[in-house]
């Protein structure tokens, strides 16, 4: 079935101090949907003046919000989760139009995870507590977690609502006010979500502010501001370094999530028996196509043991050939549109890089023509969306398609002889965000994931993102973690109260 395309506003401004406001300069940019490549609305092209306005609102709100009891903050987060859940299908459709991802993913992954994320942080903040230590009979050290105050959060475009939730939920749970900059490719779904949250009037004004616009005009002044206590960034390495450089000017705290080139490692024992686990492993190999490959942890390298390489490769290629690329609002579609034209072109450039370096195309390697999507309301097929066929290259790990994040439905397959070589190839990368290990061998099950230098190793699974599992990078993939209650400490600082109950002077002076 094809879900209805939601009718959306013609223009979107900013959300500051609990109100939807126009940008100070009154400028807007055209916003196309990747589904059909056609502009369907205008979005605020904000400037540093809007960032300052948002920071004013956040600073005005921070003292009160920081004193709101955890029980009440939890209720608010739960209310946000409920609002999201009640409007799940609508928000899924908006997210699909915004980003181009298939509706079955927004319905079954992105939005349910948003809901769960708010509920998770609503839960953990209730159970959280500081500590007290008796240093001697009259002296006590209390450790009290306190919010940072006002934080800046820069959201990527690959999961517009989910990545916003990953950042907003813990920041609010920890008692901070935030200024959020959505990605300029996907500015709409967060505004529709905010409209629902705003209508329910659950959040105090100024606690959550969203400023739309371009990176150099909004992201930069936000990251450079001396009025934020922390900046959280998800993106690529050069901008990550730049954000850290800006942050260093004010000793602002930073956390960075900068992508990866995740190995998905298949040992020979996966083939020991037919049946569901073999099937699960093949599905695991095809997971590179999830979200059109626009995932920081995309399993964009398949490493398969030589002894099973032929049969495994044949089965994976067969499975990938059967992936349906199509209209993102069609419930049958498995791979939708890439999020923007420049990504679409970049992926095509990597097809050339792969071929130039001698990688063999096992399947795909070209755009998917003829995905006819009725454009912007006129009912005519546009055939302008950004559709790419899921692609498998075969080659060796020194090739650029094995080393660089393509951010498309593209993976590169190579083989290994034994455990040592599997680990060596897995770690021969600048990055260390995700990895997958597939085996029935009890020894490999523990040793290989421990030996892989990555922050998240999926063992006999892939692409699961529960709120209760820490996510973040090793090496050039960044630092700091998202998800899990440990995330709260990236949004808090520790107050130590060192208390003496002794009436007697120390006797020094």
């Amino acid at each position: 079935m094809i879900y209805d395309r939601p009718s959306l506003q013609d223009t979107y401004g900013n959300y500051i101090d609990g109100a939807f406001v126009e940008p100070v300069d009154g400028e807007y940019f055209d916003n196309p949907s990747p589904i059909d490549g056609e502009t369907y609305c205008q979005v605020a092209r904000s400037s540093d003046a809007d960032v300052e306005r948002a920071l004013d609102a956040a600073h005005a709100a921070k003292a009160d919000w920081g004193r709101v009891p955890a029980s009440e903050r939890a209720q608010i987060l739960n209310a946000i989760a409920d609002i999201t859940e009640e409007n799940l299908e609508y928000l899924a459709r908006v997210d699909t139009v915004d980003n181009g991802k298939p509706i079955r993913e927004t319905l079954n992954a992105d939005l349910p995870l948003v809901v769960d994320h708010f509920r998770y942080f609503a839960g953990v903040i209730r159970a959280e507590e500081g500590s007290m230590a008796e240093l001697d009979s009259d002296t006590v050290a209390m450790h009290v977690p306190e919010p940072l105050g006002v934080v800046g959060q820069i959201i990527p475009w690959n999961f517009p609502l989910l990545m916003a939730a990953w950042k907003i939920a813990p920041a609010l749970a920890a008692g901070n006010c935030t200024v959020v900059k959505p990605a300029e490719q996907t500015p709409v779904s967060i505004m529709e979500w905010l409209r629902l949250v705003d209508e329910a009037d659950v959040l105090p004004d100024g606690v959550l502010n969203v400023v739309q616009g371009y990176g150099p005009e909004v992201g930069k002044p936000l990251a450079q501001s001396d009025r934020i206590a922390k900046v959280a960034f998800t993106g690529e390495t050069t901008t990550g370094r730049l954000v850290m450089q800006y942050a260093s000017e004010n000793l602002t705290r930073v956390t960075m999530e900068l992508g990866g080139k995740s190995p998905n490692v298949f040992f020979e024992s996966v083939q020991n028996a037919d049946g569901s686990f073999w099937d699960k492993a093949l599905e695991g190999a095809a997971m590179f196509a999830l979200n059109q490959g626009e995932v920081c942890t995309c399993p964009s390298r398949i490493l398969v043991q030589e002894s099973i390489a032929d049969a495994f490769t044949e089965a994976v290629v067969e499975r990938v050939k059967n992936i349906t690329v199509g209209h993102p609002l069609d419930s049958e579609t498995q791979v939708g549109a890439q999020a923007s034209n420049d990504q679409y072109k970049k992926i095509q450039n990597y097809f050339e890089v792969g071929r130039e370096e001698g990688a063999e195309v096992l399947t795909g390697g070209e755009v998917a023509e003829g995905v006819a999507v009725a454009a912007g309301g006129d009912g005519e097929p546009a055939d302008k969306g950004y559709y790419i066929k899921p692609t498998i290259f075969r080659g060796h790990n020194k090739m650029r398609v094995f080393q660089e994040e393509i951010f498309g439905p593209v993976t590169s397959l190579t083989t290994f002889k034994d455990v040592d070589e599997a680990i060596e190839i897995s770690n021969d990368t600048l990055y260390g965000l995700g990895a997958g290990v597939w085996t029935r061998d009890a020894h490999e099950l523990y040793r290989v994931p421990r030996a892989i230098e990555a922050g998240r190793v999926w063992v006999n699974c892939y692409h699961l993102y529960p709120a209760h599992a820490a996510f973040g990078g090793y090496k050039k993939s960044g630092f700091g973690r998202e998800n899990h209650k440990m995330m709260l400490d990236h949004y808090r600082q520790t107050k130590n109260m060192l208390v003496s109950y002794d009436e007697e002077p120390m006797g020094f002076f």
Partner: protein
Amino acid sequence: MPSSPPRVVATDDAKAVIDQLRERHGPLMFHQSGGCCDGSAPMCYEQGDFRLGTSDVYLGDLHDCPFYMARDQFEYWEHMQLTIDVEEGRGASFSLEIPLGVRFVVRSRLFSDDEYARLEPVEQAAS
């Protein structure tokens, strides 16, 4: 011996965008990114806005703008000539061309054996 072939070149479209940006922002620099989202794309900044490190290498000038890359990334790129072009689009990064509704993109081709033999080593970007 013939001179070293350029490691990085600009298309006419890219040159036009560089000229436009230079008029507004003054001298520019490029740094090739890696990683997710807008990774693997060249970033254009005002000269000096991005702090270079000893970990970066200088590949040459792109239409009079110095072009840099992290050394560890360059190890995988050193055998290819990079052509910087522009496409319509909207990267989410701090690259200066984004408000123009275009994005710098990089195309790559293998150097021939002859060209490769003539390449001069890259210089460290900062000391």
